[in-house]
């Protein structure tokens, strides 16, 4: 019944089937892994979205941080509006920023203090903050509130304190309560006048004007810096410098 030929034939068949089963098993395993990966990614995306939705929105009006640090940073430096430094300083360093912008916050904390210490306090330059509102609907009212604080000689305290207590962008934290807390923390004396000023056409109009100016200069991001001095070629754009030293050199060059 089972001669040699038949046996060989059966053996070959069995081998072929085994290879098929092997490939089939590998395929099943790969598809199972794939399905598992799909499941993991779905879980990860859902978790990320849920965590993002629940995360603290920041900008806590009840609990302002670093009021004294801000005070000591700008104490004793003359201010006019949102200009910080000797009014007669030859070089003007202009920052186009958005109070809601996290990169501006980083610059205000890690970048400007060195320039204020080395150049502004020495009377070599003054820093002027101009609103370039690009983040969201609460950016412009925040900018006008800073200008209104500037009208009472507390503009830079307001800017610095706002940045140090900045919340998550467009999370709605920068409401009247938060702005008022920052103004009080910044040392604005006449809150009633500040309230009137910040909603008035003078400062809301100025926010629009400086934003348009930044756009017409071709600026695309915040913060963007520009410099003007006796040796500069009119208003020169510095972009977003990567080190404070770069700005210090630009100030030296322009004076």
């Amino acid at each position, binding site marked *: 019944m089972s001669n040699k030929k038949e046996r060989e034939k059966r053996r070959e068949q069995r081998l072929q089937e085994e290879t098929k089963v092997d490939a089939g098993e590998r395929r099943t395993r790969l598809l199972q892994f794939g399905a598992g990966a799909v499941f993991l990614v779905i879980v990860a995306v859902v978790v990320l979205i849920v965590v993002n939705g629940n995360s603290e929105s920041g900008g806590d009006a009840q609990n302002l941080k670093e009021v004294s640090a801000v005070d000591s940073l700008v104490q004793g430096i003359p201010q006019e509006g949102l200009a910080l430094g000797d009014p007669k300083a030859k070089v003007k360093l202009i920052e186009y920023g958005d109070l809601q912008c996290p990169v501006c916050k980083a610059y205000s904390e890690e970048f400007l203090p060195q320039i204020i210490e080395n150049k502004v306090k020495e009377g070599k330059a003054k820093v002027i903050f101009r609103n370039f509102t690009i983040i969201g609907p609460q950016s412009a009212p925040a900018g006008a509130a800073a200008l209104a604080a500037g009208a009472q000689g507390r503009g830079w305290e307001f800017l610095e304190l706002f940045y140090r207590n900045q919340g998550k962008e467009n999370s709605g934290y920068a409401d009247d309560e938060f702005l008022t807390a920052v103004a009080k923390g910044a040392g604005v004396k006449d809150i009633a006048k500040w309230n009137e000023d910040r909603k008035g056409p003078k400062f809301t109009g100025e926010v629009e004007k400086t934003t348009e100016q930044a756009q017409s200069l071709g600026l695309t*991001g915040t913060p963007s810096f520009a410099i003007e001095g006796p040796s500069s070629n009119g208003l020169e754009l510095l972009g977003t410098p990567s080190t404070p030293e770069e700005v210090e050199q630009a100030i030296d060059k322009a004076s």
Partner: protein
Amino acid sequence: MIAMKFPTEATLRRIIAFVAALGIGVATYITIADSGGGAPACLAGGGGCETVANSSYSHIAGVNVAVFGIIGYVILLATAFFANDLARFAGFATALGGFGFSIYLTYLEIFTIEAICQWCVASAVLMTILFVLNTTRLIGYAGTTTTAAVPDQG
């Protein structure tokens, strides 16, 4: 029986390589435009790209998210050059991760940042196409062996 109705693996690999190359281009543009504090230029006007590029979500641990995009697209491009199960699964897993990440980023754009950047949308669309292609490839060809090791460059 499935393979008959499917595009051949060589075709899939060629399209994957092409789309991944486009993705590398888009992600590289975003990375370059963003370096130095700028932002990608929005083609149809509007400040969406500026808002997105300036948002705190545009960087993870100081690294622009577009850099992760470049890495993903490069891996996807590489997997198109091999016809084995490792490449098929690596391509699928990378495209799946990229697709999931794109969903998250698009969610952020719409609901948190409230601004849309066309370049990010372009990348999300490319990643979606790559996910579909790589899934098709895995389902159609997992467990098979082919002799062609390099896609036809014609």
